[in-house]
Every structure is written in structure tokens, then in C-alpha cells.
């Protein structure tokens, strides 16, 4: 039951992210979404993912957003000045609704039953064992992102 409540709360905070007026509240809603996701992960038996989600999703990303928003000094741009929003919103929302319905209906067709006996390898074995390449890839991703941010914020005089 808790799972359904969490799912509903997630959807709710997602809607809040989209529609609340104040950008800071949107960021907070995003963090809330992460927190709910993280709780859900825990319930689903994924504690490590839960911690990652909590620290990176709810922590790091929220802080990054906050910092950047304060950096551009426009925390309360809101969306009062949106123009042409109605038409785009309408079509997009229609598309979202249609796709959602279609996907939900079609996916209901063949959900696999919970696996009876699968090789339940523990996280460290998987992460540092068979997925080592991806973990190395992740370190490259982080390296790339840091160099990239270095490029975007470099202060040396350019051309």
C-alpha cells in the first residue's frame, strides 16, 4: 500500500515541479521527488540505489540547481511571462496523455511474473565485478564533465 502512496506522491511532486510558480519551490519539489524515489527504492530492496538517489539526486543536484539559480540572480522568474504556452502545452499534454494511455495499456499485456529463482548477486559483486567497465566509464563521465565545466568557466582570455 505504501508503494502506491509513494507513487502518487511522486507523481504529485512531479506535477508541482512543472506547475509551481516559484523556481525555488520547483527545485525543492524536485528534491522531494528524489526523496520519494529513494524511499521507494529502499522498499523495493535496493538500499544502495536508495542512498545514491538520496545523496546525488536529492542532495547534489538540488544544491547545484540552487547554487546556479542564485548565481543568475533570477530566482523568481516564475512563468508569468510565458507566451504561446497554451498551444504548445495543449499539444504536448495531449501527446503525453495519449502516449501514457497507450503505453500503459500495451505494457499491461505481458508483465513477467516475479522471478522464481534468479541469481541474486549482491551489489558489490555486480558493481565491481561484471559491471566494472561501466564503472570505469562512469569515472570517465565524471572526468569529462569536470573538464567540460572547466571549459565553460575558464577565465583565461580567449580569442
Amino acid at each position, binding site marked *: 500500500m505504501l508503494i502506491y502512496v509513494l507513487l502518487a506522491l511522486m507523481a504529485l511532486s512531479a506535477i508541482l515541479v512543472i506547475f509551481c510558480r516559484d523556481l525555488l519551490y520547483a527545485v525543492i519539489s524536485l528534491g522531494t521527488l528524489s526523496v520519494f524515489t529513494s524511499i521507494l527504492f529502499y522498499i523495493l530492496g535496493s538500499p544502495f540505489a536508495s542512498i545514491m538517489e538520496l545523496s546525488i539526486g536529492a542532495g547534489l543536484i538540488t544544491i547545484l540547481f540552487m547554487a546556479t539559480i542564485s548565481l543568475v540572480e533570477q530566482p523568481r522568474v516564475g512563468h508569468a511571462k510565458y507566451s504561446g504556452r497554451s498551444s504548445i502545452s495543449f499539444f504536448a499534454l495531449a501527446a503525453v496523455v495519449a502516449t501514457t494511455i497507450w*503505453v500503459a495499456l*500495451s*505494457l499491461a*499485456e*505481458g*508483465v*513477467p511474473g516475479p*522471478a522464481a529463482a*534468479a541469481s541474486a548477486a549482491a551489489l558489490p559483486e555486480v558493481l565491481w*565485478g*561484471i*559491471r*566494472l*567497465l*561501466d564503472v*570505469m*566509464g*562512469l569515472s*570517465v*563521465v565524471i*572526468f*569529462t*564533465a569536470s*573538464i*567540460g*565545466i*572547466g*571549459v*565553460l568557466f*575558464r577565465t*583565461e*582570455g*580567449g*580569442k
Partner: protein
Amino acid sequence: MQSPELFWAMRILLPLFLGAVVTYVIGKIISRIKGDRAGGVVAAVIALVVTVAAYILCFTYPGAASAGAESGIAWLGSLKPDALSLLMAKIMFPLVILVAIYSLGYMKDDSGTDKYYALMLIMAGGMMGVVGAGDIISLYVFFEILSISSYCLVSFRKESWEPIEAGFKYVIINALGSTVAIFGLSLLYIYSGSVSMAEIAAHISGLPDLPVLAALALITGGFGVKAAMVPLHSWLPDAHSAAPSGISALLSGIVIQVGFFALLRLILGVFPLQMQMVGTILIILAAVTTTYGNFIAIAQKDIKRMLAYSSVAQMGYIILGFGVGFYFHSADGFTGGLFHIETHAFMKALAFLSVGCIIEKTGTRRIADLKGVGRVMPATAVAFTIAALGLAGIPAFSGFMSKLMIYKCGFQAGTALGVVLSSIAILNSIISLGYYMPAIHTLFSPAGEAAAKVKGTVSPAILLPIVIMVLITLVLGWHPDLGLGPVNAAVLEILNIIGG
């Protein structure tokens, strides 16, 4: 016996990623001690050494002999390089080497070039990871490495507004695209319980139809963004025209093709049962993409933007080849598509490099302002002419040969649809003359203001890659078989998989 996975990880990926770190660190140290320019040169030299070394190493691939060999290392299971990957490596490395040489001259006044070369190596590594990946998660990780490095490279000259605007649009659109793709992949995981392409493919006939097709559509749409299929292309003209010319050359020449390759890997690895479906989607998208790209390129006023839209059109040709190949089960389609990737890489890179050189000297990108540039910079203008004629598919240049194979596969299909597709392709090459010829025409028309501004000679570091690419374009135009060896091996690989 060395297994392909180990080979790929140790001789291709490791040098590139490790080289990136070394390039960055040493480049940074030198630029602290000796100044930016020296740091850039050192970084470029290290990057060049690394790419050349990796390029040489990629010829040591033991080939089919090792196909069955096991590395015995579990985590290498997420790589599964084959002849297709090797083909892409053989196209990518020369391109990256030439662009690195070019950048040595072209980027010499920029700051932070140590990061530039490191990002370029990472981009190369990302591409090699994508083409060698054997499971959906590694594919995604490497795809993101490729994407993030290319975002930063596009916005490298952040001092002006254009790269930044293009960069942000690029980030948002591509992030959306790749996330949609991974969403499709996650569906596959939910339904099959596995992330290895081979395992998913083994289960796929037992899976319910709709989720598989939904995943197929989402993956096509998601990776289609990177492959710039119309209407998923809108980031391309911005990003490709705003990037430094060397990066434009890489993006147009190989990165969007790798985007398509990610899709191709999944189609071949996971969806061999849905060939007809994939063929249909690709054919429709390809016809739209080519026609749209050519028409909109005619209306462009900015020469780099025109080339960017021409990339959209050329991508359409490539996809058309594969679409026809899948739909009609014809080997010629694959040969044409893969060979066009190869020839287009060098022609489009040539076009961008020569145009970059012209832009740097004249300071303008408007086609109308480039009058008479051909007289003050004859070599560069002739190189651009050769590239444009090749791209338009005029015989004696490599583009004709690859396009010919694509035309041929449509006729070979023998059905009305095939003939119609080939006719669309042939007609499109006429439409494309509508923008290549006026551009050439302008370059050689009586001198204008821009031509008067040109001073000094083009540096040899810029000229050398241009000359080499001209040679490649001409030689492949007369003797395509020189470039067809790896292509044929890759086609055999595809036919093996789809059972043709």
C-alpha cells in the same frame, strides 16, 4: 589468443581514455609553466601520439581467428566488438588524427586547448565504446561520454554567444533523446531481465510483442536524435555551425554516424526479428530526411549552416541504404550505407575544414560575402570545390561511388518501391547541386570585400589534412575498392547476424 573484447578494451579504449587524462594533466602543467600556447601544442602532440598509436594498434586486430576466444574476464563481457566496430575505428582514427593536426593550426590562439584535446580524445573513446559495446548499459554509458564531451566541444569558444546558445540547445535536445533511448532500453530490461544484447535477443521471441515494439520505437526515436533524422534533427544545424570547424568536421563526419550506429547495433543485436519493421521506419525517415535536408540547405545563407543541413541530407542517404538493406534484405544496401559513411566522413570533414580555413581568413560566414575568395586562397577553395562536388555525387569523386551503391540497391530490389526510392535519391543529388554549385560559383566570382581582407598564407598544419582528404576523396572516387575491404567485412558480419 587475444579475445576481441580484451583487444578493444586494451588497445582502443584504454589508450584513448588514459591518453585523455595524460593530455589534460601534462597540457595543464605545461600551460602553467610556459603559457597557454605551449600547453596547447604539447597537448596536441600528446593527443596525436595517442591517436596514432591507437590507430596503429587497431590494425593488430586478430580478426575472425579470435572471434571465439574468451577473455576470461567477466566485466569485459559488456564489450562485443566485431568487423562493424573495426570499420568505424578505421574511419574514425584517421579523421581524428587529421582534425587534431588541423586544430594545431586552427586553435592556436584559443585558451584552454589542453582541455580541448583531452575532450577530443574522450569523444573518440566514447565513439569507440559505442561501436564496440555489447550490452545496452555500456552502450548508454559510452554514448553519454560521447555526448557530454561533444556538448563541451561545441561550446568551446564560449566567448561568443553562438556556441553557447547552440550548446544549450544541443544539451537539452540530446539529453532528451538519449534519455528516451535509455527509457526504451529499460523497458527491454524489465521484460527480459537482462542487459546483454545477446541474451535479450535470445529471449526476444518469447516476449510480448508490444513492449518490444515500444522499446524499438523509443530507441529509434532516441538515438535518431543523435543521428539527426528529420524531425529529430533541429539541434544539428545550430551545433555544427557554431562549433570550431575541426569539431564540426568530426561531428558531421563521424559523430552523427556513430549516433546511428548505436541504433544499428541495437537493431542487429536485439531486434533481428523486426527487420521489416525497422526497414519501414528507416526508409520513411530517410526519404524525409534527405529531401528536407536538401531543400532547406538551398535556403541557407551561412555556409557552415548549409554544410550542416547537407549533413542531414547525407545522413538520409546513409539511413536509406540501411533501410533498403533491412527492408529488402539486400547486401548492397548495407554496402552502400557503410561505404557512404566512409566516403562522407572524409568529404564532409574536408568541406568543413576548408570552409573553416576560409572563415578564419575572411571573418565572415555569409555565402554572399565570400565572393572572390577562390582567387586569393586557390588551394583551399579548390579543396572545398572537390568536397562539394563529391558530396553532390559527381563521378570521379568518392561520393559518387557510395551514392551509386545506394541507388543500385533500390533498383536491385526490383519492386516499384525500390525504383521510387532510388529515383528520390538521384533527384536529391540534383537538388543538392542547387546549393553546392552557387557556393562554388560565389567563391570563384569577381572579388569582393572579404577576399580583400585575406592576408598571409594558410599554415601547413591546416593545409596538410586538407590535402590528405582531397587525395582520399579523389582516390576513392576512382578506386573505391581500396576502401571497400573493411566495408565488405562489416557487411558480411551484418549478413551473418540477420541471416542473409
